[in-house]
């Protein structure tokens, strides 16, 4: 059984921080589709449209019938582990830092055999449940998990490499004034975060939930304004070296499209928080996090942004807001590539309209802050790069994958 990980001791200032090496990065183009599925938390394999055969590794043609008409589909995740090894010596710099490393051969119920990471609680031979996770290099890898949950399962060192679990980690939540920010803080405390730093913009303005927020033992609040470069740099100077996970819950939302919008100032305010705020965060905290991507149990693990699903397509009633979301998404894509150097995950939690003052005229279903908080924790614990919280976000995501142009027309109708 997995030993529960313990809260790491304070860092030895004489020790060199372990450099963040990455696992092998190169993949064929075909294999990237598995990463795309894994980024959404799905275990997908290729299936031949002509003969129905499942196949692995990723191919460009079916080994049963030579058809090139292949599709990635959610695959049955059961299998039988038939062999195992523990790698103790490797020439790869990433794995060298992490041996011993357990690896298995699993015969999938759907056919193919898979070389995969092997959870410490799996007995060989035996039944396993397969999961595809993004590794530190952002590529999908398959891991065999115990068929039934085991105690402390998430603490398995190989699995922890594939997630950004908040357990024992120190987390910054950027907007403690909002209900979403407060719900996320609460969820992090419950998920075992060692410390939660909470940014409060314009602390001289009172806000609901303040007392409850400050009552948590492991929560520290800081004056912190995403629109103020100095403020962001100051906080990074103070806690940047021990921020393991950064969660941006800030979102400046005002109704209005381009023609019906109140004007440039509101648009600028929105962009300043949603887009440039994200940039300030990334520039102030990113380099430190990248440098600490392999810093032990509480290494820097994730930069997570909670953003509107209308990043995918504009909803004209909130046209400017959608535009900021799209810019935000684009920034995250850039940042994801840049943060990869440190093995730090950049995660997006896309939400539908939140139940708040600004979205009164928006018809239900809406997302409650508690749901978002739950999705944030699930994303971190599951290592899921893109998650969609609430019915509207899931609906928009589905339509987006089907046809982005159709979605544009639907939202703009």
């Amino acid at each position: 059984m997995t030993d529960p990980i313990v809260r790491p001791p304070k860092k030895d200032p004489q020790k060199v921080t372990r450099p963040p090496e990455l696992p092998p990065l190169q993949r064929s183009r075909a294999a990237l589709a598995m990463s795309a599925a894994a980024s959404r938390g799905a275990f997908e394999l290729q299936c031949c449209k002509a003969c129905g055969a499942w196949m692995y590794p990723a191919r460009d043609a079916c080994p049963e019938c030579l058809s090139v008409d292949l599709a990635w589909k959610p695959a049955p995740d059961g299998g039988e582990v038939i062999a195992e090894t523990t790698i103790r010596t490797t020439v790869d710099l990433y794995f060298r830092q992490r041996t011993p490393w357990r690896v298995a051969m699993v015969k999938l119920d759907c056919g193919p055999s898979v070389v995969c990471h092997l959870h410490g609680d799996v007995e060989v031979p035996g039944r396993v449940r397969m999961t595809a996770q993004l590794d530190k290099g952002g590529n999908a890898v398959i891991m065999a998990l115990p068929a039934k949950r085991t105690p402390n399962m998430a603490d398995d060192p190989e699995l922890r490499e594939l997630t950004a679990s908040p357990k024992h980690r120190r987390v910054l939540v950027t907007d403690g004034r909002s209900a979403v920010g407060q719900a996320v803080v609460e969820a992090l405390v419950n998920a075992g975060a060692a410390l939660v730093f909470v940014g409060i913009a314009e602390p001289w303005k009172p806000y609901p939930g303040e007392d409850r927020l400050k009552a948590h033992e492991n929560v520290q609040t800081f004056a912190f304004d995403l629109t103020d470069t100095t403020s962001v740099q100051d906080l990074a100077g103070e806690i940047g070296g021990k921020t393991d996970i950064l969660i941006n819950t800030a979102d400046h939302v005002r109704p209005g499209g381009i023609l019906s919008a109140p004007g440039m100032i509101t648009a600028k305010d929105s962009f300043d928080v949603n887009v440039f705020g994200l940039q300030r965060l990334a520039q102030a905290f990113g380099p430190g996090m990248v440098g600490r991507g392999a810093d032990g149990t509480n290494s820097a693990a994730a930069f997570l942004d909670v953003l509107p699903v209308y990043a995918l397509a504009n909803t004209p009633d909130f046209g400017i807001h959608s535009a900021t979301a799209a810019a935000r998404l684009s920034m995250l894509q850039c940042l994801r590539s840049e943060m990869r150097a440190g093995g730090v995950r950049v995660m997006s939690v896309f939400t539908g309209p939140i139940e708040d003052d600004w979205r009164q005229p928006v018809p239900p279903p809406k997302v409650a802050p508690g749901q978002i908080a739950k999705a944030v924790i699930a994303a971190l614990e599951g290592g899921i790069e893109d998650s969609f919280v609430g019915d509207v976000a899931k609906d928009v995501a589905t339509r987006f994958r089907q046809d982005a142009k159709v979605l544009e027309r639907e939202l703009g109708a």
Partner: protein
Amino acid sequence: MKETTTMNGDALLSALASGIRGGGVRVVDLTHTLAPDFPVMVLPPEFGQCQPFRMEEVSRYDARGPGWYWNTITMSEHAGTHFDAPAHWISGRNLPAGTVDDLPLDRLVAPVVVLDYSAESAADEDFLLTRAHLEAWEEKNGAIEAGSWVLFRTDWSKHLGSDKYLNLRADGAHSPGPAADAIEFLVKERDIIGFGTETIGTDAGQGSHLEPPYPAHFILHGNGRYGLQCLAGLDQLPARGAILFAAPLKIRHGSGSPLRVLALVPAPDVV
């Protein structure tokens, strides 16, 4: 005092210069430092908002500019210690010379009267300065001359850095300010240049609930008078006898501007 008016300009300025240089005249700064964490006016969120001061570094002897340091700053016209021109308020929208690029220069350098209600403000965060207060003040200190700036000392600037400065609660801000009759009196009967405060606006924190709402803004600007707010250091000014320098930036069609407010005050007599 009358004799000085017989001096010509050269002599006047020369006397002033020697006073500033050699004693007798002190330059006092009435300005807060412009900084990103300086609070701004709070309006309901559905309205356009007052942009706080922001500063982005352009270069600092680095790759962005190896030999020089400079910043780009952005802010509302009404951020930090700032000047309100008549056009700032709807009541002053049709007045001539209502914007900061078009102000008579003699209004920008003028004598200043300081009304000290710091004790009253300490006792009552919603202290309202009324006509009755002014009449009582004049009783004691003599009449306010036409063409003066009037500054309302509350020592509120000393709350900067604490929540008390804005003193926001669910029912709005709580800070001292003038009642309508006080402003009516100063404008109509004393013909002042403008009215200045240490608080975030020229009106009381609860000024929107007065009649008319925001009486200082409404009456001052409706009559072509100016406002100064977020002033500091009023405790260094005498009740009268100082000269105020309050020249906003010359912004085309500007409604106001952050500025450096200076005062020349008689130095305490050297013993």
